[in-house]
């Protein structure tokens, strides 16, 4: 008897579980119908819900410390700055600012902001909102990731040094060295006006302050940061609803948004994907509405064109640039410009792209600034970026050559091993020297070695522009003390031209930037490889969305199909 009652219990439990399962299966027949119209009754105003692929934000949603894509896209949807960039051209235009008046040498700017802007919590956007946010971002002890945007590498606001504090010889922050909490260059004139004094002339100031580090912050942020991190408050077209950690971040259209155009979609779900392949499968099955990047699984054999027929697009991105950099400070091996030129000549960029990414998915570069940016000149790299086996061999013969095996360092993930292998093949066949990849398993380990200046052979360098300007492709990367000058390239003439250009405007400035760029082709310390193309797809639930100059979806352009 004992046996049978136990068996009964087991069977009952199994049946129970099955019933639970069946019940759960039943109530969700439609699956996730993201983006299916929504119920916004009125004909005006935002309607519907859409989902967009995202990654888990790596930092709290505070503009001054968000510097990666996952958080950056959400911050950009939740905030509007003084200036915003036109989504198609990247051209800066006034947003919250009514006017930005420079003095004649671009060292002082008077900024007036428009009336009627409020934060999502109802508090007004004032001059103080900007000044406080910028001081917070620059203050050393706050350790904000975007701190340098307020310093010499960005806007260079007067008094930055005192606020940022100092670092010692090893680069460690000196405790207590930040002597002020506010930058002397920022002055609030009245409720809606403030002046900014810069440490050096900068005609690009208006462009730079469109970057997310310069967004305003509501008063509540400064009184209770913890509460703010739980529920961030911006002044942009979409307001924060909730975060389901590691699953999604949900925004809804802000009814009192003062900017233009207004949001067309009511709810946006930024859905977190650990693996882009899963997002791709979802968008193919119409269970995700917008995918801003097609993973290799879709690019291989161009299957994305058939999988997403009529709902996908590809266009060149104006913001990304991949190059190979020679280290110049920790070794003498690459001091000869002819050697660097010979290696550049020996790389058949077209063939490498075809082998590593599929033909046409990237564009061979022959300049240090991608097309589409103001001041782009085709072919500044000239003959040195064109594959020419004979010339490469001739030039190589004049140099001391490469000692031993030529190594190219990169991280092996993210599709980089593929191009390094292909480039090595091209160099090996052209110059007849040994060439090998030198890989780190991930981007972190690779960057750690680059930052420590440990790599003594050419290595991969990539760049994603912070703001749409030719200056951002040159100054941080190639000036002697640029924050992203990984190879230690230093050319006083280049530095001088960049410095002068910062004090000029329009064509005059562009001319100087172009002159500086042409110096790069004489030295070839950084050899251009290619510009990116952006491929994206969307579901049948939405109309074709627009993508920003950065290559991410513009939330204001999203609308659901009726």
């Amino acid at each position: 008897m004992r046996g049978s009652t136990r068996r009964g219990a087991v069977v009952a439990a199994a049946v129970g579980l099955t019933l639970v399962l069946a019940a759960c299966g039943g109530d969700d027949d439609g699956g996730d119908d993201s983006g299916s119209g929504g119920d916004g009754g009125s004909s005006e105003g935002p309607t519907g819900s859409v989902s967009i692929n995202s990654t888990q934000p790596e930092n709290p949603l505070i503009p001054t410390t968000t510097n990666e894509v996952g958080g950056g896209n959400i911050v950009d949807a939740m905030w509007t700055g003084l200036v915003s960039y036109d989504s198609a051209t990247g051209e800066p235009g006034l947003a919250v600012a009514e006017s930005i008046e420079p003095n004649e040498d671009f060292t002082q700017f008077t900024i007036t902001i428009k009336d009627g802007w409020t934060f999502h919590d109802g508090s007004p956007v004032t001059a103080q909102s900007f000044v406080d946010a910028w001081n917070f971002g620059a203050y050393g002890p706050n350790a904000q990731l975007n701190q340098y945007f307020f310093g010499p590498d960005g806007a260079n606001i007067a008094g930055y040094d005192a606020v940022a504090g100092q670092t010692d010889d090893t680069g460690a922050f000196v405790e207590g060295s930040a002597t002020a909490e506010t930058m002397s260059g920022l002055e609030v004139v009245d409720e809606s006006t403030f002046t900014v004094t810069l440490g050096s002339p900068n005609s690009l100031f208006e462009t730079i302050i469109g970057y997310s580090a310069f967004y305003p912050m509501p008063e509540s942020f400064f009184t209770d940061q913890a509460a703010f991190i739980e529920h961030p408050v911006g002044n942009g077209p979409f307001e924060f609803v909730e975060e389901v950690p590691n699953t999604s971040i949900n925004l809804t259209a802000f009814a009192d948004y003062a900017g233009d155009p207004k949001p067309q979609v009511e709810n946006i779900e930024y859905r977190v994907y650990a693996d882009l392949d899963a997002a791709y499968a979802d968008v193919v099955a119409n269970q995700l509405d917008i995918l801003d990047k097609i993973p290799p699984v879709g690019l291989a054999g161009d299957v994305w064109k058939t999988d997403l027929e009529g709902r996908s697009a590809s266009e060149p991105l104006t913001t990304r640039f991949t190059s190979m950099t020679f280290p110049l400070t920790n070794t003498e091996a690459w001091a000869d410009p002819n050697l660097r030129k010979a290696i550049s000549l020996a790389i058949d960029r077209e063939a490498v792209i075809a082998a590593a990414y599929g033909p046409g998915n990237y564009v061979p570069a022959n300049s240090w600034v991608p097309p589409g940016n103001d001041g782009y000149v085709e072919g500044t790299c000239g003959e040195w970026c064109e594959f020419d086996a004979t010339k490469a061999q001739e030039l190589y013969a004049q140099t001391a050559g490469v000692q031993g095996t030529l190594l190219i360092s990169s991280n092996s993930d993210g599709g980089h091993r593929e191009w390094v292998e292909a480039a090595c093949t091209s160099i090996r066949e052209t110059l007849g020297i040994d060439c090998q990849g030198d890989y780190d398993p991930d981007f972190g380990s690779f960057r750690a070695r680059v930052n420590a200046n440990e790599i003594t052979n050419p290595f991969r360098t990539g760049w994603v522009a912070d703001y749409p300007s030719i200056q951002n492709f040159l100054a941080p990367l190639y000036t002697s003390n640029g924050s992203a000058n990984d190879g230690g390239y230093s050319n006083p003439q280049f530095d001088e031209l960049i410095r002068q250009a910062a004090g000029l405007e329009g064509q005059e400035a562009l001319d100087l930037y172009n002159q500086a760029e042409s110096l790069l082709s004489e030295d070839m310390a950084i050899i251009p490889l290619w510009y990116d193309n952006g491929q994206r797809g969307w579901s049948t639930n939405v109309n074709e969305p627009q993508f920003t100059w950065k290559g991410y979806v513009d939330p204001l352009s999203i609308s659901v199909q009726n």
Partner: protein
Amino acid sequence: MGRYVVQRLGQMVPVVIGTTFLIYALVWALPGDPFAARCGDRPCPQNYVDRMTAEYNLDDPLPIAYLQYMGKLLTGDFGQTFSGASIAAELAQRYPITLQLTLLAILVEVVIGVAAGVLAGIRRGGFVDNLVLVSTLVVVSIPVFVLGLLAQVTFGVRLGWFPVTSDGSLYSLVLPAVVLGSLSLAFVARLVRANLVENLRTDYVRTAIAKGLPRQRVIGVHTLRNSLIPVVTFVGADFGGLLGGAVVVEGIFNIPGVGNMIFRGINAHEGATVTAAVTVLVLVFMIVNLLVDLLYAVLDPRIRHV
């Protein structure tokens, strides 16, 4: 029985300490600066790196840093991820999902596995037997990630029977659970079949048949019950394997479970996250195995825990 349980619980302490130390040491020993990748193609501001280094005690020697970590852990403070989120909250949110997935997988593996094993065992050499043998062979020889992608494309994208990725509903976990459980299902089926075939030849079965008991009762009660002991052992041990296998399946189906968390933690060098997730994993695993051992006594009264 009570004493046995206490004894077993006591044994867990050194195991937990040992595993957490190993995991903690290994994750922080991963090559590369955990903060180097956090600022794209330029170095992070030094004060940011300093603050993070201090926050995770990375300047201290490993044993000290570990002790500091464990000290916090004992007071229930699991620490924070690099993005400042509470790890404890994340665990609380993710564990139920992974447990649901794992339990579903076990359900699939036990229900289908035992049924297939019994059907194959009672008619040895028959059509069903061969069918089970061949189909389990196929399942065993395909790696989980291939099976997962195949199932996702076939049943999710093409046929549309299941959601392609997890949408939070239990239903969306069914397909991943079948994939996850399929390998063990094959083992269970073969295990049940082999045991059943063997037990059907034993004396007590012959006695039962001679006594005139109906066939269902002979197989269903006398034979199957004895054949299930190895299966229970297997399923208990497999529980840990399934939790581990969830890393792959959760990635394919974008399920926000612990596997995903561990994977992301390892990639980001977040020692605190990985250690916390794995510690709980170890605890769950040990408790399940304790339950399994107790279950033996239920299945076979001759086994007594004193």
